[in-house]
């Protein structure tokens, strides 16, 4: 027989009380696992949606673009981008490399003229960014896909003057598929140029602000409008988002080896909204963890304190029999730890099962701020959150047992023996 065995028997001597205490710990643990999984799903979907609709995993620009390019974008264009694509595509983990040319301009129906943001893309390569790795199920449409064609057709290289218009912009201009439009902008050389185009379809992404302002057109058409053969950026899509940092370094090595004057930005450096949302959710999650820690501390403290009060005479007895004060301290700490381990273990089980169940069913969620589309939450069981929830249960259980255990170990033997 060992002190651990005695501690375990003491834990189960008041089954109902211990069960209530363990349930409180398990409840806290479950809350951490579920909310952690819920937030992780939000961040995952937001991240993937941004990557697929807007940023890709990595973007390559001419050196200096990020510092000075906003004022003089056409001074930082990449010439001969087609030579770079094979170099970057050869890096392990790269799925697609696509070129983009962006500009600010005007779009007109003849009656209505509004400002817009044009994005020249490669139709044959962009779909890879939009749908890579994800079957186009309805659920994906509501949550994962980067760009969704709501009406009409997607861009087609063989139809150079067919463009797609952001949902909000199309609604604002009151245009539909088939409407003839005029795109007007400055060329790279500084003169004005205009192009007759036809609205081929309307699209939306996870960003309402983008959909209210953007049009997409084939890259060759954008180059014709801007009178250039260069592009502004190369967008790189990877097999796995987790590979971003590794791929960035690998591409940087390739660019350096070829003495190319280019700079790289990762998706998170380009997604300010995502980074801030992540920080915000992490703060919220921290508050939840704190609340859970308080629940565990209070429930265990109460149980352990009751145990010390009820077992005062017993503590006196074992000390009279020769148990040292450190032995009494250890016994009560083991009991607290046992409650934490058992409650935490129960929490892991319940939390994981609940999260998996909810993931299977899905929770319909309203559109997040700045987005147009409602989505389906499918909380994820995150191993690091499981680990954290368990460690939190055990550590807080130990912490809250410290004072009762100390109190027990400092009892005066004769005084303790006098208690009934």
């Amino acid at each position: 027989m060992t002190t651990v065995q005695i501690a375990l028997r003491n834990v189960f001597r008041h089954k109902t009380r211990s069960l209530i205490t363990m349930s409180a710990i398990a409840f806290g643990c479950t809350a951490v696992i579920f909310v952690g999984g819920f937030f992780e799903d939000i961040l995952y979907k937001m991240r993937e949606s941004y990557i697929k609709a807007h940023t890709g995993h990595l973007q390559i620009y001419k050196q200096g673009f990020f510092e000075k390019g906003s004022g003089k974008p056409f001074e930082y264009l990449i010439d001969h981008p087609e030579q770079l694509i094979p170099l970057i595509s050869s890096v392990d983990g790269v799925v697609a490399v696509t070129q983009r040319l962006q500009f600010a301009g005007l779009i007109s129906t003849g009656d209505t003229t509004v400002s817009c943001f044009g994005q020249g893309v490669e139709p044959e390569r962009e779909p890879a960014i939009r749908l890579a790795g994800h079957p186009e199920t309805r659920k994906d449409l509501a949550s994962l896909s980067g760009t969704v064609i709501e009406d009409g057709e997607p861009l087609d290289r063989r139809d150079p003057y067919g463009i797609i218009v952001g949902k909000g912009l199309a609604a604002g201009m009151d245009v539909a598929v088939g409407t003839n439009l005029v795109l007007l902008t400055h060329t790279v050389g500084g003169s004005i140029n205009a192009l007759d185009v036809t609205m081929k379809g309307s699209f939306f992404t996870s960003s309402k602000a983008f959909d209210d302002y953007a049009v997409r057109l084939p890259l060759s058409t954008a180059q014709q409008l801007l009178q250039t053969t260069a592009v502004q950026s190369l967008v790189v899509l990877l097999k796995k988002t987790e590979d971003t940092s590794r791929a960035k370094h690998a591409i940087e090595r390739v660019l350096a080896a070829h003495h190319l004057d280019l700079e790289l930005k990762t998706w998170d450096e380009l997604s300010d909204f995502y980074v801030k949302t992540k920080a915000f959710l992490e703060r919220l999650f921290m508050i939840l963890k704190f609340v859970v820690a308080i629940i565990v501390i209070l429930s265990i403290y109460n149980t352990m304190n009751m145990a010390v009060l009820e077992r005062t005479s017993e503590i006196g007895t074992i000390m009279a029999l020769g148990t040292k004060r450190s032995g009494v301290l250890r016994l009560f700490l083991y009991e607290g730890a046992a409650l934490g381990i058992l409650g935490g273990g129960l929490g892991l089980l319940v939390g994981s099962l609940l999260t998996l169940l909810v993931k299977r069913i899905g929770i319909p969620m309203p559109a997040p701020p700045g987005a147009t589309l409602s989505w389906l939450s499918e909380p994820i069981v995150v191993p690091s959150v499981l680990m954290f929830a368990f460690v939190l249960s055990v550590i807080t259980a130990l912490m809250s047992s410290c004072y009762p255990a100390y109190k027990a170990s400092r009892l005066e033997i004769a005084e303790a023996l006098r208690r009934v």
Partner: protein
Amino acid sequence: MSLIDVRAVTKQYWLGRTPVPALRGIDLSVEPGEFLAIAGPSGSGKTTLLNLMGCIETPTHGAVRIDGADVAGLSGDSLAELRATKIGFIFQRFNLLPVLTALENVEYPLLLTRLPDQQKRQRALEALERVGLSSFANHKPLELSGGQQQRVAIARAIVAEPRIVLADEPTANLDRTTGGDILSLMKSINQRQRTTFIFSTHDQKVMELAGRIVLLSDGLIASRP
């Protein structure tokens, strides 16, 4: 050399700001193998004197020597070791640990030693056999009668083969017959193993079994027959 030597011992408690003297100057020597009764009415200081000899309390003044060692100079841990190795305790309310079986209760003092597990279990079984309860080894205290519980407590007190067993009113919670049986058991262990037994009582019948009686009255030794 006496096994226990109590010299000019006083013990004073405080009730708020009021001092309450429990012992007012005790001199007592106990020799190895004695079967000594400390008698006296309630409040005469019997339990306090036993506590001092059992090293679970320290005197306000005076000295207590156990086997030649002055307990005043010992740390808490050293006192715990002294109790674990040299002193066994029997309590009025038996004080068995409710979550442990009879055998495990008897084994408990051996957990504090470095004996191999097998030997601990063997010695606990032997002690339980000596008190005639080997067939109740796996019973929990609540499944035993008062007399049986006190027998388990006696087995627990002697399992580590201490030189001294202190028993505070060991028969007070038992009927007369069972109490007599318990005293006889203690006496037989005393005679067979030469273990020194010191027990407190206010029962005249119990006193008759003692080899020596120390009568306490109002914190002082009234007589030393």
